[in-house]
């Protein structure tokens, strides 16, 4: 039962990601943590792997549409590898409950940004 629910949430997450241009991660992490009972750090680590198929398909479509600035994407992508090391280090050093709360706060900031984007798009 839980597995079916998790698959449905994954599907829904993809729809929302495709529609609003946010990655699946903000949907995947809570689903893995609350739905499958993973610890916060396991949910976050697993989410990054789960993002890859969606990001790959999305990138392929966007490149074909000519929307990707390839040079900028390479600069940002390669530089991100440095930042990732710091992010993982901090996440690994935080206690479980602190990391979960920090992620909760991040979700609220994300929610505000989604609302702002919808408003902007509406105005355009």
């Amino acid at each position, binding site marked *: 039962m839980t597995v079916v629910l998790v*698959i449905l949430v*994954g599907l*829904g*997450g*993809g*729809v929302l*990601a*495709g*529609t609003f*241009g*946010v*990655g*699946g*991660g*903000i949907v995947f*992490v809570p689903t893995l943590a*609350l739905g499958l009972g993973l610890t916060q750090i*396991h949910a976050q*680590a*697993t*989410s*990054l*792997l*789960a*993002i890859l198929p*969606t990001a790959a398909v*999305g*990138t392929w479509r*966007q*490149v074909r549409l000519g929307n*990707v*600035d390839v040079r*900028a*994407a390479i*600069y*940002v*992508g*390669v*530089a*991100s*590898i440095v*930042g*990732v*090391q*710091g992010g*993982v280090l901090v996440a690994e050093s935080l206690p479980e409950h602190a990391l979960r*709360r920090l*992620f*909760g*706060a*991040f*979700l*609220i900031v*994300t*929610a*505000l940004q*989604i*609302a702002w984007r*919808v408003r902007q*798009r509406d105005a355009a």
Partner: protein
Amino acid sequence: MGASTAPKLVGIGVAAGFFGALFGVGGGIVIVPLLVTFLAFDQRRAAATSLAAILVSSAAGAITYAAHGDVRVGAAMLVGIPAVVGVVLGVDLQQRLAQRTLGYAFAVLVAAIGLKLIL
């Protein structure tokens, strides 16, 4: 795009990698507004370019966490594979759904989950 944009792009990449890995997300939430604000990208180009960069940052994050033994491959496939189908459907549905309503509903849902995790 001139050579002077390179330091900005590198800065955006480092910030996106840090926050993306810290929260287990791709980093688009950081990349998109920064590309729009500091490099005058329009929303569509920013989102598309961000998606391509996320491919690299997420892979780097997954590999780094995997070295700590934190990645659960089966669980990743369980949510990751249906999401691909969802993205394809999402682009299709985009034309038909009331985006404004759906967008605000999604924002409220995300905020509610955030509150649940904090409290």
